[in-house]
């Protein structure tokens, strides 16, 4: 048994903000304080380990609700960018495997750097079902952290077919089957309808026009998926990457989407990219539209979002939204990868370098910041950089500093483009996050939104994923959050004094198993065999790919 | 003169080479299917080479003795199934790319025994 004593606990779910208490850990879980007799017994047997955390800040391990860390698209990004790795080398150390870092690190290094930052659970944001085995193969080489993946389901042939046939039962069965056979955690919806349109060589705007051979509008797809997701009881909402993402004036589409889905659970991801206004008489065209978007979020009780905060410097954009990456390529002239995945989805990759001297990049940066500050309830907004799209996840400590310290933020703004204030109102925002709010946006909130009841808090029964930070007094906030004093994963110390313990440890793969009628596989068999290029019998992920699995129950009730 | 004429050696797969390679690399079949050269029928005729005649192919990396086969080919190229024999002609210079000149090696044809053109 392990006792962490005298810690200053920040555990918003259990209403603790700087409360000095002890934490007891046994068998990977946080447990109640044992009886005095038990403690005496443990001491006598010398199996009670105590660590004194006097004056240290203690939070649950960080939870990232949206990050690109494994699978075909991420790996293609690695291959694409040898120049991204060359100067960031991680040698083998003890049992820790070697690798490379920078914006698309190798899988081991991804695990190390999340762990070193005190993050213990990360959700891979977009997996093509047909290549799910690849994701699980990489998961098995992604050490320390618990992870799961969101399966792409907004442009799949059978999804579009069943919706267009009004066959809602089949849709639900298909989605549940898809999650089951791919070992996914929840549903991801990327530019619904728009990815199919891209494959058909068409462009779609907004959510109301019908544009593809399936004769469906994005709104019809979104509504059906949100409803199916709620009825299946999947612990996480549908995870939506909006239509028109990245384009000036897209806040209208975003707000229409939010209003359309107001009766269902929705998580809108990297909403920074979806909150732009448009100025017509201007070369820049972009302007923040955070007032409008934040107002809608503040109005809706079920809705959650993550930001996708922009970070200046190198990034590698990657998404299932193929047309978006095509546009980024046209805009930047940078190298461009596109992969259309049959019957399911697309994807694209473009390296980017966000520059502080670039006014549009500044506006994007401000859009993220403003949303953080204008969304009133921290339980609705989560910290992400849509790694590695808007920047690498290793920038989280810096973003935390920007949120907690308005002086630092204003200093930083003073280095922006001279016209910055004409397009943003960040300079007028004085709000500062406190430690409890930081704990919400970086662990408790995302865990709750994902439906992970054992994550993101330090109550009895929680997973013993715990991060210990030095006190902020006289310390740089970013430094403190970048280098936790200790990190515990499943009750075992994995980081000490900013260094990884040199033993590899595997985390769990998080999955859900919603109920469905297995007949669905037979119902789709004929078309599958014809129009996929592999057999339906070779499609599913077999058990040999699963090393350490936790099935999260589907007990959401609407 | 045949000895003054250069060809680009194209190595590649053939279905028989594929079948032979999975039927045991040590078998005669594999050797047979990788040890011939296809040459334009016009060239054969022009230089009085016989179908199945043994000739010597030579590059700056080595030489091999192979049977020749007439084929519908441009007179700029000769074709060999890829394998050990063809690889005696392919040099190791990759020009810094890691890839040798497996389809761009310059070769010459020599008669086994000199006979009048």
């Amino acid at each position, binding site marked *: 048994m392990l006792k962490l004593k005298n810690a200053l606990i920040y555990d918003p779910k259990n209403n603790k903000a700087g409360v000095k208490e002890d934490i007891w850990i046994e068998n990977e879980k946080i447990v109640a304080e044992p009886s005095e007799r038990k403690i005496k017994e443990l001491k006598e047997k010398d199996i009670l380990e105590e660590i004194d955390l006097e004056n240290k800040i203690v939070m649950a391990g960080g939870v990232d609700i949206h990050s690109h860390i494994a699978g075909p698209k991420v790996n293609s990004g690695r291959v*694409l*960018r*040898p*120049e*991204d790795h*060359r100067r960031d080398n991680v040698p083998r150390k003890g049992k820790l495997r070697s690798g490379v870092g920078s914006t698309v690190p190798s899988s081991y290094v991804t695990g190390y750097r999340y762990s070193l930052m005190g993050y213990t659970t990360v959700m891979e944001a977009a997996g093509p079902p047909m290549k799910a085995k690849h994701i699980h193969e990489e998961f098995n080489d992604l050490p320390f952290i618990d992870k799961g993946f969101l399966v792409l389901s907004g442009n799949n042939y059978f999804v579009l077919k069943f919706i267009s046939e009004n066959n809602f039962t089949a849709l639900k069965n298909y989605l549940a089957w898809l999650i089951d056979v791919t070992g996914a955690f929840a549903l991801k919806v990327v530019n619904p309808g728009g990815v199919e349109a891209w494959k058909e060589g068409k462009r779609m705007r907004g959510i109301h026009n019908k544009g593809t051979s399936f004769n469906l509008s994005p709104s019809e797809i979104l509504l059906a998926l949100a409803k199916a997701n709620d009825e299946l009881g999947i612990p996480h909402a549908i995870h939506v990457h909006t239509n028109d993402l990245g384009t000036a004036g897209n806040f209208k589409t975003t707000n229409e989407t939010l209003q359309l889905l107001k009766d269902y659970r929705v998580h809108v991801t990297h909403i920074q990219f979806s909150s732009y206004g448009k100025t017509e008489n201007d070369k820049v065209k972009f302007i923040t539209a955070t007032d409008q978007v934040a107002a809608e979020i503040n109005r809706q009780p079920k809705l959650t979002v993550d930001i996708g905060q922009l970070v200046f410097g190198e990034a590698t954009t990657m998404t299932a939204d193929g047309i978006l990456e095509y546009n980024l390529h046209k805009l930047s002239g940078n190298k461009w990868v596109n992969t259309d995945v049959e019957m399911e989805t697309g994807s694209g990759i473009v390296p980017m370098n966000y520059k502080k001297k670039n006014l549009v990049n500044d506006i994007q940066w401000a859009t993220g910041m403003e949303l953080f500050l204008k969304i009133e309830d921290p339980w609705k907004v989560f910290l992400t950089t849509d790694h590695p799209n808007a920047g690498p996840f290793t920038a989280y400590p810096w973003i935390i500093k920007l949120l907690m310290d308005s002086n630092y933020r204003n200093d930083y703004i003073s280095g922006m483009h001279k016209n910055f204030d004409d397009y943003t109102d960040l300079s007028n925002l004085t709000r500062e996050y406190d430690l409890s709010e930081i704990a919400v946006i970086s662990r408790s909130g995302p865990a709750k939104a994902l439906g992970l009841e054992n994550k993101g808090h330090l109550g009895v029964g929680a997973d013993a994923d715990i991060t210990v930070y030095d006190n902020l007094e006289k310390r740089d906030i970013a430094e403190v959050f970048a280098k936790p004093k200790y990190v515990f994963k499943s009750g075992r110390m994995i980081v000490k004094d900013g260094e990884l313990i040199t033993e590899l440890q595997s985390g769990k793969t998080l999955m859900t198993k919603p109920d469905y009628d297995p007949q669905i596989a037979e119902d789709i068999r004929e078309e599958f065999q014809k129009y996929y290029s592999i057999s339906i019998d070779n499609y599913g992920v077999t058990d040999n790919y699963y090393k350490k699995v936790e099935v999260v129950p589907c007990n959401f009730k609407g | 003169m045949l000895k003054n004429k250069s060809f680009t050696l194209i190595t590649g797969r053939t279905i028989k080479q594929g079948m032979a390679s999975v039927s045991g690399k040590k078998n005669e079949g594999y050797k047979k299917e990788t040890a011939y050269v296809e040459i334009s029928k016009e060239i054969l005729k022009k230089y009085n080479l016989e179908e199945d005649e043994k000739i010597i192919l030579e590059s700056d990396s080595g030489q091999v003795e192979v049977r020749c086969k007439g084929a519908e080919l441009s007179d700029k190229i000769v074709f060999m199934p890829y394998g050990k024999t063809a690889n005696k002609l392919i040099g190791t210079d990759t*020009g*810094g*790319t890691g890839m040798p000149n497996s389809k761009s090696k310059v070769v010459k044809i020599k008669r086994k025994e000199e006979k009048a053109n």
Partner: protein
Amino acid sequence: MSKLELTLKRENPALIKKANKIIGKVPVEAQNIKPSLLKDLNISEIGEIELLSGKESYLLKDFFEIEGSPSEEIIINGDLSNFKYLGAAMETGSITVNGNLGMHAASEMKAGYLEVNGNVGDWLGAEMTGGFIKINGHAGNYVGAAFRGDTLGMNRGVIYIKGNAGNFVANKMRRGEIIIEGDCGELLAAQMIAGSVYVFGSCKNRVGAGMKRGTIITLNEVEMLPTFNYNISYFPDFLNIAYNHLKKDYGIEVPPQAYKRRYKRYTGDNTELGKGEILIWENV
């Protein structure tokens, strides 16, 4: 002025032997033989400098006899064709090699001087940002190039090769000058962004493929890509100035027939910006 002289031992740990016969050589990574580092050490400390050969770590004295005194000026004798990264990231001083030298010589060089009395391997002066390199023999591929996937090759500095050079010379070059007295291989100045390359010998195919800007000057006919335009045949004054500068500032022997003569000017690559130029000396 004092100099430091290193002479490669006949027997050294990089040799691959079979029945006492040398059959090959394991690469040695020599970036630590760096003037800025060595000048402040004493001779015995210099002997303790780490050199990696394959996966094994050795000391400089395992490979070299050390003579002279600590200095920014280093002379190395011996066949160093398996020595890589000599002069890499070098910032000051000079290195002279009497013998051949391996890959990545003076790659990412910032300043200083490297001279090789012999041949050098690939990636000479790759991504260098300053300094002067003189090769009295031949050079390999990727002279002054960008590393894999990178956007910028050589960005300032001078590379002067008396002999021939391989493929991909000046690949993605951004700034600076490369002068090749001999011939050069394929894809000279491919994807060049800017800068100048002079080839007094001949160039193999695909000169300037994908170049955006920059100038290629050659004294022999070139097989032009279909993506270049012929503009004009003229007497470019600026070339005489450039040649004088090469001679005066770098001591480069420009062939006399190159001066004050007619050149054909092509521009391209038209699939890119199309602002690159290729000047070809006209033998009229």
